[in-house]
């Protein structure tokens, strides 16, 4: 392209996306009630037999509402993972927050984010892998939920998952 592209003036405005109000079902009430007891409550579609965690209230394949509930194991398998680079102070901002400043991650920490298929479910649950080094994580790794000592009925009661070490099984 021979024509020179000159940068032109810009005018500004905003989209107040933070002012929107969204409506959700009370499905997560059941999750956090279960978490309080260190249990995972999933939903079961009696049409196709699939078990969802987090729960789902409409099965698109059967095109029907899902009402049944089922308690599932807090042990599962890593189906996929991704690893962040070292997250440094002042490097990224999420929703205006610096995760290091906000105390969400430690300075220089590498987060291992995993999809976990809890035994007895047909879904992935996205969470973080704790107590493991980035180089050990692999697809197929068996993991167990890490619960807060005193659960409060919050999603954060499940802090993540950790590898099931040989010595800790059976």
């Amino acid at each position: 392209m021979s024509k020179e592209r000159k940068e032109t003036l810009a005018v500004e405005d905003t989209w107040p996306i933070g002012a929107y109000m969204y409506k959700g079902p009370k499905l997560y009430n059941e999750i956090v009630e279960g978490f309080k007891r260190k249990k995972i409550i999933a939903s079961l579609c009696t049409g196709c037999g699939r078990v969802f965690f987090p729960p789902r209230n409409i099965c698109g394949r059967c095109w029907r509402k899902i009402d049944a509930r089922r308690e599932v194991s807090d042990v599962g398998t890593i189906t996929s993972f991704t690893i962040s680079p070292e997250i440094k102070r002042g490097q990224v901002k999420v929703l205006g927050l610096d995760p290091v400043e906000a105390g969400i991650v430690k300075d220089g920490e590498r987060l291992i984010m995993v999809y976990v298929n809890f035994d007895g479910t047909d879904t992935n649950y996205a969470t973080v892998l704790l107590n493991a080094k980035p180089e050990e994580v692999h697809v197929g790794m068996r993991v167990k939920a890490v619960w807060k000592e005193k659960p409060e009925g919050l999603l954060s009661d499940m802090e993540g998952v950790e590898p099931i070490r040989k010595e800790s099984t059976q």
Partner: protein
Amino acid sequence: MWRNVAVIGVGQTKHGRRRDVNTAEMISEAAWRAIEDAEIAPEDIDAIVIGNMQGFGGICQAELWAGDWIGAPGKSVLRVATGGTTGGSVAQAAMYSVISGLYDVVLAIGFEKHSDSKEPGATTGLAHVGLANLFYMFNYGAPMRALFALSGGVGAAAGVSSYQAMFYMHRSGCRIEHYDMVAAKSRRNAAKNEYAHLQWPNCTPDDIAKTPMVAYPLRFGHICPASDGASAIIVASEEIARRVDRPAWVKGLAACADEENQMGENAQGVGILDTSEQLQCRIAAMKAYEMAKIRNPREEIDVAEIYQPFPHQELMYAEKLMLFDDGKAWIALEEGETEIDGRIPIDPSGGVLSTNAIGSSAMQRVAECALQIMGKAGKHQVPKDVKNAVAHGWGGSTNFTVVTVLGDAPRR
């Protein structure tokens, strides 16, 4: 009932950082090039189909304002938007408009102007895909760590895609080096495409391998840019298309949607365990090929334009489009089969990895296929007689697929 239609004109803007124009001017640049390319008068156009992702450019239904630049007043204007698939969905809506017999000549435009957003890259628009889900989870005391992991730790789309890239590696046995090869090929091809954004002549896999890891297994060099740009095609009835030298005939078109690929509404669970499975792409491909009477895509498809903002997607979707056995595309890549002069060139334009103006991207796949058939692709024209070309697009959370088959002769 079905009547044959063809793409008779193509127009693209230079994609990249386009601070020299406003959105309306950028759209019109592509539209008028397409009109000139088709050698028709603007009055000949009966209807317009247009689309982009509104949140990325901060304008709601931009065609209401920008329509005046492209001759929209007095015409039927349909806005179609489906995420990444937008351009492909727009192109197909234009095709159905003419096939239906309601219109004879339709202008289809896809566009995006990412640089108008103040946030870097495409984060504004992408974050808003799942924003409601995040707020929902906040209500239940979601752990900030996990939310950070979901939303921004690895960048919204890159997040979903890095999991998918891992799934694909696990499924196919390919390695990160293959992703480097795809990315390098894309940059090299883009250097031959005057409209492409990231152009890097002679880029090697080693060059890509030197870029930092963003979200293992994806490197910085594996990630598409956020471009500004618009692309357009003119779709016309057989009668009108016959006046053109070598139109690109629409032989098959299909779209298909699967269950969401990461989470459902309000962060509900979804029953897809392996996001590289891509059942909907296989179904759309089968439907489109059947319509096009293509029985053996490996033999009959001469060139493919695949929507691949991330390199594993070129390999994964090439398999789902039945151009290679499942899990074997990386072997063809190693052997150079997918190069511009290879047996089955994939993304000779450089594809989405090198140019991604979201609403324009899937439209460009159709436009590039049309150019290859018309023999007007210039420096990235594949050195063979192109009889059939397949254009692909993915959207949603990689759970939407559009597949369009164009050919050098009408469907029989």
